[in-house]
């Protein structure tokens, strides 16, 4: 299974392609491709978003589903999806914490 990830042009934030073809700052919103056809659709959407100067550094990455959550296979991508492992107050994990405490 794969999802499409990139960094947003304006601020470099890690983003994933969502079902409505927007780029979400949370991997939870990512469209999961389980077949070649969907992968092809994701890649085409990525190329278009690059051409539209919305995102840079677009990549299809491998994921698995763990307890209903989308979890990248590679540590690199898990760190992109959460934030630095030495600073839980930084990156997306920090926003999640802040959201929960509200």
């Amino acid at each position, binding site marked *: 299974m794969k999802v499409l990830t990139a960094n947003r*042009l304006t601020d*470099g934030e890690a983003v994933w392609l969502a079902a409505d073809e927007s780029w979400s700052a949370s991997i939870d919103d990512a469209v999961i491709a389980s077949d070649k056809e969907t992968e092809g659709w994701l890649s085409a959407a990525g190329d278009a978003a690059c051409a539209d*100067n919305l995102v840079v550094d677009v990549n299809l990455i491998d994921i698995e589903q763990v307890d209903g959550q989308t979890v990248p*296979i*590679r*540590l*690199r991508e898990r760190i*992109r999806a959460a934030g630095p492992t*030495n600073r839980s107050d930084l990156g997306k994990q920090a926003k999640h914490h802040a959201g929960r405490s509200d």
Partner: protein
Amino acid sequence: MYRYDQFDHDFVKARVAEFTDQVDRRLTGEITEDQFKPLRLMNGVYLQLHAYMLRVAIPYGTLNSRQLRMLGHIARKYDKGYGHFTTRQNIQYNWPSLSDIPAILGDLASVEMHAIQTSGNCIRNVTADHFAGAAADEVADPRPYAEILRQWSSVHPEFSYLPRKFKIAVTGAERDRAAIQVHDIGLHVKKNAEGELGFAVYVGGGQGRTPMIAKKICDFLPEKDLLTYSTAILRVYNLHGRRDNKYKARIKILVHETGAEEFARQVEAEFTALKDGDLKLPEEDIRAIERYFAPPSLTARPEGDEALRLARLDSRGFSEWLDQNVITHRHADYAAVTISLKGIGEAPGDASDSQMEAIADLAERYGFDEIRVSHEQNLILPHVARADLKAVYDALVGIQLATANSNLITDIIACPGLDYCALANARSIIVAQNISKRFASMERQREIGELKLKISGCINACGHHHVGHIGILGVEKKGAELYQVTLGGSGDENTSVGEIIGRGFGPDEITDAIETVVDTYLRVRSDGSETFLDAYRRVGQAPFKEALYAGEAKAA
């Protein structure tokens, strides 16, 4: 320190305006990422895992308090409240928006700073001994020469598109604290028999995937020939350095493949053709640059000895810090202070906005307005009266920066690793933090003595693992992090490249493995005065291999 003249101001201002326009054009889609990438890299802007990263140049690691305060301000206003000091004496911000970078560069320009040539295949920030101008063992301050090289190499038309990046380091002392033998060019300022200043010139050192120790190709280069000879080296490299393979493009490969003797001959031939031309440095120009680096006028402060004697009795913490983090100054009433950015369990090299501001205040009040960044990722106050050391210490305690671990096992160099860096294969910071916590006891650290532990999260070796007494290299193997341990490296005047001790260790094993190495050293050292490096050089790998892997061999 060096102050911008009108030319410098205009040049940096023009560059900020130019890059501001380039960022605008990128954000409006007028230029593509392929077109923009080389432009942003020329201005120190990388794209990392979570965000853009801005690398700001700190020439030869020298800052004044106004500049450090501005670095703190940028951390607070545009980033997430901290900055990361690097092994190239620079600072990196990990979270800036591309749209904010023009404003950041404008703020930097207002304090005579920039991010030019902190990336790309050009001559990068010239580094120097962080105790320059203060060290008791110095022949001459290396920074005037570093500044001359900076001026010459800034947007040098011939050397802006080299086969690969190019790093120069300068030391003015026999004891090399600038790791010159692992640089593309290493310069050792010395005096000849006639008392004239010049350089021993080393070339072709480097770390990365192919570590090489530099070769000395000139034993004494008169100072007037600095730029001519450097140009000759760069020309030979620019002409013959490989452009077909990024991994073989550094000058170290050219020197190695050509042979040092033949390489030196080619440089000499080029040098002879250029000699006594426009690049010859007039005596008055060298002395004019030197005046910018004139030492502060250090008035006699003889009350320091008595003050320190009393303060030592009063505070054990101060006494330990004095022994570990304070070094002898060329003026007997003064000292140079290392502010450790390696608090137990902290990320090596990180400083918060308020810590930067507090250190700037200390430099202004007690340190003649000077701060240095060391390649070991600490900050230095190079000139502090011994009588003021207790006040400085107390202030550092107040900002959690009084850890007395300079040159001890927890004074770890670590690159950002996989927590931030797009090139990394494994994490570095967390490995450093775990080792730091394991060896938290200051008593134990002092018992172990001088031990330089350096960690890189990939083969590019930004964490200098090749020259760590203990080096750790993080790699990715079958999708997991694996840490290779090297022993016996050193980045000083007796440079050596560490040797891989055996199979690597997983993230949960590496701290134990390091402890085993250290315990083995404590067992084999001849006495407490034999350092880890000396003991390793005497006994070799065998006892360490045995301690780390003997159980496995038996099990197999």
